[in-house]
């Protein structure tokens, strides 16, 4: 069973966002995503100060068996990337909500955060996905 922390918001692309005290958003991928990806071996993250658009690709994550896009949960500017995780992508698997965070965004519109899925909605989303998978 994948972990879904209660203090975060989520996207349909299985990313999480945490609202920090300064209004910025820390972004990562969820426990479910890291389980699906398997061992992550490479992270392609955007440059600091680059502008990203909500819902658009901002990087890539390569695991032993797939390459998947990373998406910007909201529109904003990249203010920090997790260099340690980029150097040691295994952190994403080991601690997706902690040491495996990916980047920090300064959102253009703080209200966008409220539009992301709540933990309850994301848990429901995961259950629906599991149900669809079983039907196939």
């Amino acid at each position, binding site marked *: 069973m994948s972990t879904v922390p209660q203090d975060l918001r989520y996207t349909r692309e299985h990313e999480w966002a945490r609202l920090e005290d300064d209004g910025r958003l820390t972004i990562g991928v969820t426990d479910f995503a890291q389980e699906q990806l398997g061992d992550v*071996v490479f992270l392609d993250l955007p440059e600091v100060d680059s502008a990203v658009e909500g819902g658009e690709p901002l990087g890539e994550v390569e*695991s032993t*068996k*797939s390459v998947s896009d990373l998406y910007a949960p909201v529109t904003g500017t990249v203010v920090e990337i997790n260099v340690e995780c980029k150097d040691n992508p295994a952190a994403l698997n080991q601690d997706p909500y902690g040491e495996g965070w990916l980047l920090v965004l300064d959102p253009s519109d703080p209200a966008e955060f409220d539009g992301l899925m709540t933990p309850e909605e994301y848990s429901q989303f995961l259950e629906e996905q599991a149900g669809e*998978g079983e039907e196939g």
Partner: protein
Amino acid sequence: MALFENAIRKESLRSVVRIYRWDGPALSVGTHQRVSEELAARCARLGVPVVRRCTGGSAVLHGRDLTYSVVARHGTRGVLEAYSEVARGLIWGLALLGIDARVGMGSQSTAGTPVTVPLGARSACFGTTVGADLRVGSAKICGSAQLRRRGWLLQHGSIPLADDRALTRRILRHSGPNTSTCIEHLRPGTSDAELSACLVLGFERSWGSAREVALEELLTNLECVE
């Protein structure tokens, strides 16, 4: 890759399976895999072009293999689920040749291992088996890789027809144990046309009988490129 890009741009909503050969020896490397100058020089000396895949993973020597690729919507399928869907077609196809292939659960790779060529066995796709690969007994018969973008997946993989491990070792300079096999060992005398035809039938049989399969639309667009 063009099919994949077209699908994403919605110029084409078709999903397609392709099965194809390579003109001659070529080394494909993962999208983020570093190719050392030494390896590049060795390949140049041997007349083996190096091509970069859009997918991840490690180096694969082509030329005496058959390659498949699938472009399809992945829907809600996760990475391993999609692998499983594709694997069913491959397993059926190989079964038609009397080859009992299973989804591999062999030695797992280790997170955080630098993807650099050459490093040893892990630099070569057929030097290691992960959960999404196909094996016969304990030997790997098909290695695959997947790219997921905007709801679509491109998955491709290589099935060795003949034993290319000597050349692979010469190019990648790894000395790991032989963990792979090939069609020639499993069913001597099998031609690439025969394997190709069986794989097409395998995909048809697998997906055609499924009660609800995300990739079933592939059936109407099956291509066999030889």
